[in-house]
């Protein structure tokens, strides 16, 4: 397999993981960017454990899921049912703080970066299996009582409360799961790329993930898959002079989709119709 294709598929799958970690809490209107900070934390944690303590991949991955979920769980006590923008600002603030901490900590490589993380032998297989597991898990949540409760909260929180649904519980649950997914994405990223830079975990990443989520569509978990593949893929086939405008293109697409088709390209209704036809 060509290395370009391998990078493309690997990155896409990591972005799908991250997009799912943002998708799930957005089911109850939480744009949970804390996941980006979490990804930074677990990728550096994974890198340090591997480089300095000789940890292998699987235990690092398991630990990172626990740590990621724990971070989100602790914070979710206060923002489990906070208004959307409170959740947003808490997340972005954490991203900013974590980035500054990394940049100013020599042990983590500072602004120069952390190198020499052992790469996985078969990253794509690991990623694919993991993605299927996470996907199945999300699918089960979607089609459970909790998933339907979330839909009610999304359209009308007061109605949800009157039906006996507890928005905070569901918000906390989704944020926690989302943290776990982001934690895993961090370790996959570290072991896939082999080197880490604080600059990766910034507004760029937030913007890219938002673009994937909203272009793909936030009403079903499947939308982010083609969106991640296409949005990661297009810059790879464009000449580098145009590809360097990648974020500009994302920005334009983000504005356009919200103004034209705010639910995204792939919606739940659309998938239903497709299923019925067959």
């Amino acid at each position, binding site marked *: 397999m060509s290395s370009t294709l391998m990078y493309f598929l690997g990155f896409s799958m990591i972005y799908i993981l991250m997009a799912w970690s943002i998708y799930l809490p957005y089911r109850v209107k939480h744009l949970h960017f804390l996941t980006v900070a979490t990804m930074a934390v677990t990728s550096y944690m994974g890198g340090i454990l591997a480089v300095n303590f000789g940890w292998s991949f699987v235990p690092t991955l398991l630990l990172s899921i626990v740590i990621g979920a724990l971070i989100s769980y602790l914070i979710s006590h206060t923002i489990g049912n906070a208004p959307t923008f409170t959740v947003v600002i808490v997340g*972005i603030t954490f991203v900013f703080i974590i980035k500054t901490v990394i940049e100013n900590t020599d042990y983590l490589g500072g602004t120069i970066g952390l190198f020499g993380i052992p790469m996985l032998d078969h990253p794509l297989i690991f990623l694919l299996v993991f993605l299927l597991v996470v996907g199945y898990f999300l699918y089960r949540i979607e089609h459970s009582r909790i998933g339907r409760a979330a839909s009610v909260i999304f359209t009308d929180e007061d109605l949800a409360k009157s039906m006996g649904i507890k928005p905070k519980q569901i918000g906390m649950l989704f944020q926690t799961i989302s943290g776990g997914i982001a934690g895993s994405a961090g370790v996959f990223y570290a072991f896939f790329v082999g080197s880490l830079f604080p600059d990766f975990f910034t507004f760029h990443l937030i913007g890219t993930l938002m673009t994937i989520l909203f272009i793909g569509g936030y009403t079903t978990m499947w939308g982010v898959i083609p969106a991640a593949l296409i949005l990661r893929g297009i810059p790879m086939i464009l000449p580098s002079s145009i590809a360097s405008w990648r974020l500009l293109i994302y920005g334009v697409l983000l504005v356009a989709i919200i103004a034209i088709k*705010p639910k995204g390209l792939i919606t739940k209704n659309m998938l239903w119709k497709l299923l019925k036809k067959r």
Partner: protein
Amino acid sequence: MEFFIAQVLNGLSLGSIYVLLVTGFNLMLLVAKIIQFAYPQFVVISMYATWAVLRATNNVILAILVTIVVSIALNLLSEPIFRRITSIKGTDINATFVASIGLSMVLVEIMSHSFNQGFPISFSDSWVGGSVFRYGIINISRSSIFAWVGGIIVVVAFFYLLYRTMVGRSFRAIAENLYVAKLFGIPIFKTSMMSYLIAGLLGGFIALLLSMLIGTASPWLGESVALKVLAVSIVAGLGNLKGGLFVGLALGVVESFAIGYVAGSWSNVIAFVIMLIVILTKPKGLFGAAVE
């Protein structure tokens, strides 16, 4: 003591800028009903305009005019996009936030690709101005005075507008209840346009004051400023204009002390940590949110 006074004075000049920024941001939130995350980006682009005119002509009056015109134009030009988004059935204010992040990404990329090869720009000493008063380590620069005086004048003028004129009353009416405002016959579209216009005018002033006060700008300045503005608005209570005045000034002072006591880039984090603690303990803000 001297050190303390010096930090407070510095903090107040930076704080005035935050106050103006959050006021413009809140105005659009209350009247146009949007979360304009790209508003600080418009300010930064206007700073680039100041810089470009000064470099090309060295004409101060022209630079001031162009800055204000650019700022107003950017805000007015964004209006149809946001109007389109808010008029779609079933979308809420979150959609305007997402779109303004997209807009923000576009603007950052344009600045980093097109101006000064993406390097930060710096303003000439004559624009920034020197010190006008010195006592020990207390150093009052011309730009600080501009920031204080400008800040006070603009805030007073803004609140005069808000409480003593028909436009201002209509702003508050729409902020309180859009439906009732409609029943009263208040022109929603025209008043909303006015809020973009005034936010644009305000943005122009901010660009001028900020370029003098910090003397530089970069394509990434807007991102951290936008983050602070949103944070200030939330800490004060989203859309709470009066609360924004207090928290904006407080942020300036806190940052100034952080810079005084803590080394280098760590100082930037202090203010964020404090705001984070406040938000986590009071998710709806210190003074109560004016919008949900």
